[in-house]
């Protein structure tokens, strides 16, 4: 596998450096950092997340051979892609998702609006598993907020205005929770899609997870407070 890994990405000996000793081999944390450097991307760039998603990576900071091959196939790259080729493909992919907002270029293979929505939903849901520590059911709060901040960069209709308030509220500790359940994670996207930028479409009697109920309550309180102060 070590030699194969070489071939996959000849500019990088990450395969070897990651875990040459014990098969099956995979690209470890150092390898990923190396890969990112070669791609010219910050490891916390949305495009790295996209790559991981396309690879269907199960764990953070690690790729298995099969995963990387799957990712390359999804990006229509050759068996042995170059760093530049991979980078260009990722740029294009992000443009396709966001309609070119990020890079200002229109990509050749624009996806159908409906398809990108589906793709984003898939990315979003996958991100929960990606961030989940093995054996856990809930996503640790810091990880959840980081992922939320990152994943919405790829949202077809742009970063939702409510996201900032949501993250601030969560980080302030007012919610009293330490982890985010899968249900809450999934429902948050629905919440963002339904209630948009303002909370007028929100109905307290609907089946929103209680974390979202609490958030809306806090937000409404804050809004009322602001009104009073004016």
């Amino acid at each position, binding site marked *: 596998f070590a030699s194969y890994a070489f071939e996959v990405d000849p500019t990088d000996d990450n395969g070897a450096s990651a875990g040459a000793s014990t098969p099956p081999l995979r690209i470890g944390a150092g390898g990923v950092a190396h890969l990112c450097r070669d791609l010219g991307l910050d490891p916390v760039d949305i495009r790295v997340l996209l790559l991981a998603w396309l690879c269907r990576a199960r764990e953070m900071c690690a790729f298995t051979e099969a995963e990387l091959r799957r990712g390359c196939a999804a990006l229509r790259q050759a068996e042995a892609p170059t760093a530049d080729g991979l980078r260009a493909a990722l740029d294009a992919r992000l443009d396709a998702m966001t309609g070119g907002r990020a890079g200002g270029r229109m990509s050749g293979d624009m996806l159908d609006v409906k398809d990108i929505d589906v793709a984003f939903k898939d990315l979003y849901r996958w991100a929960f598993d990606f961030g989940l520590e093995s054996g856990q*059911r*809930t996503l640790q709060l810091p990880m959840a907020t980081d992922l939320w901040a990152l994943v919405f960069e790829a949202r077809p209709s742009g970063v939702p205005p409510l996201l900032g308030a949501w993250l601030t509220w969560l980080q302030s500790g007012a919610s009293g929770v330490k982890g985010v*359940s*899968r*249900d*809450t994670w*999934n*429902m948050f996207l*629905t919440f963002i899609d*339904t209630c948009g930028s303002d909370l007028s479409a929100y109905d307290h*009697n*609907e*089946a929103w*997870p*209680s974390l979202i*109920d609490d958030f809306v309550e806090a937000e409404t309180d804050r809004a009322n407070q602001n009104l009073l102060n004016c």
Partner: protein
Amino acid sequence: RSKAMCTLKPHQVDFDLAWNKLVRTVDRVLQCEDVAKETWTDTFFTIYSLCVAAPEPHCGSLYTHVNSFLQQHCQAVLQRLDQVPDVELLAAYHRSWRTYYDGSSYLHRLFRYLNVHHVQKKQPSDADLCYGGMTRSADAHTLEVFELAMDIWYRMLQQLAPRLCPLVLAQIELSRRGVSIDGSRLSSVVQSFVDVVHWDRKRCLTFYTEQIEQLLLAQTAEFYAAEGDALFARQPVHRYIELVLQLLREDGERMQALLHPSSVDKVRQEAEQKLVENFLPQLNQAAVGFVEQEESTNLANLFQLTRSLPEGHKELRRLFEAHICSAGEQALATVGSSEPAAAAQEFVDGLRQLHEKFKAWVRGTFNDDAQFDRSLDLALSKVVNQLDAAGKKQCKSPELLARYVDAMLRKSSKAVSDSELEEKLSQCIGIFKYVEDKDVFQRHYQRLLSKRLILGVSHSSEAEEGMISKLKSACGYEFTSKFQRMFHDVRLSESQSSDFADAHGRDALGISLHVFVLTQGAWPLQASNTPFPRLPSPLERGVTLFQRYYTNKFQGRRLTWLHAHGTADMKLKFSRTYSATVGAAQAILLLQFNDLPASRTLSLADLANAVGVGEAELQRCLAPLIDCGILQADATGQQLHVNQEFHSKRSRLRVLPAPAKEAEKEQERVASQIQEDRKFFLQAAIVRIMKDRKRLNFNSLTQLVLVQTTPRFKPEVKMIKTCIESLIEKEYLTRSQAKLDEISYNG
């Protein structure tokens, strides 16, 4: 006689001759003039012979002639009445009508043969009349003579009505203004409008309704609108209510006397609309004052007045509820600040008084109206459930109630008769039904019951059982199962202990040992973490023997000893012998002094060592012993000795240690335990429901859960939500992908 027989045979009759002979009698009968008996019989026979005449019977012509005779008669009456001036018209009409009505019924009898042999044979069947759309008429010869007469008068009256009806209405208005009128005459005139079409079942009231009722309703509305405005302006509201009630009552009687019964309610409604409904906002405004000042007469009047209006009582009920709530708040305002036992007493007494007082309102003022009864229940349950303990989140009522019941069920110096106790406990159940947090009550009751049972201070086991069965009927088997278990345990222990004593010989131990064997989980007792001091040898031996006896008898059962809850009866020998009930730890303390010379003292440290308890615990046990004078401490408080001079009037003493001062902590523990229990209960309810329904909308699920939990407590929707979420997380449930609010069960 033979002549009469002969005439019964059909024979030829000259119709004109016969009719001319008839018509004079007919005229006299119709005018109700005297007719000689022979003439009547004669005429009757003439009619008979005409009807059976040979070769052709003359029925048809006879009927036509009667018809035109009656028409001419009515025409003549009409012409005469047309000449009568308005003032006399009612009287004149009444006279003519009475005569005609009576005359017609005589005539009907005179023409009996014609009715039976001519008219009735032609009449269509009832079914045809009802469903076949057929009618009877003079032209078809299907009206009997009386009906014919009525129908002809009806046609005449149609022409007279435009003059007559306004006069009728004017009379009614006069009567409403207090002028006395000839009621029976008016009533008879009005009734004629019904009588003339009475034979036609389909439209018997139409004529009356069109000609009189409609006009009267309009007039009523106008009259009482003006009357109401005038009255309201002149009178204070409470007086207005009284007067209107009187007005309505009088008008009701008037209408009953004058009109057809079907109109009475309609007229009343019309009057009520103008007099009551139009003033409802003002009346309700006034009701605020009535309720606040508790003016029961005015309230009763207002209640009666608004009774028949749809939703007429709504506002009154609201005010009633609000009044009870504020009265309740006032009455119970001080409850929070007194110490627990007194607070419980105050709480229950306050509520009982409230209930008595306002129940009396419902009975007297509000005529035992079911809706007001419900308002009372609603308001009281609000009072009960909103009582908070000095700003603490948890409602204090369940605990107070449990404490009150405890005080009732304890042995006390006050002699309470069984029936009195029974009544008080029933009242408690009444209050208990208002309590929403029944599970909180359950916990407190359990705690207090366990104390009563273990310390043996129950008033009587009948009373205890009675209360449990009352709770059971109020809340179901599950609610009281632990109580019953506890009760059962104590009884069983009784027999076990004596069994044990028998097995080992009563005197073998030197002490009599009574062990409570209690089912774990049914009792609110926990083995304490701090190990209990070593038992003195006679006790230790007893305990070991009992353990052996018990495990032999019941294989596989494990005993955990809770010595801290035990008590000991000791004989104390001073100048005389006392028997004292003390806590287990106290018993050990006292035994330390047993073999010492009288003057020896023991230091606190010695005692703590010997008994093996902490200082705080030691103090708690010693304090009552010192307080009652059995032990004495020296000036430093460090050295203790037995008070040889001990003296008490009573030979039986109870010197139990004061309950641990963990009350605050205990409360918190109870509260958090209740929260935990509720979560389990909710989750169980959710799973039960989902297992049954498989798929459910979020809101219906919430509703179903509420239905299941309300008998125990009233959960917030948020709590239900949290429980659903945790079940989703545990993958018992799944949220539907397509529909946000649909939840399905992962069976």
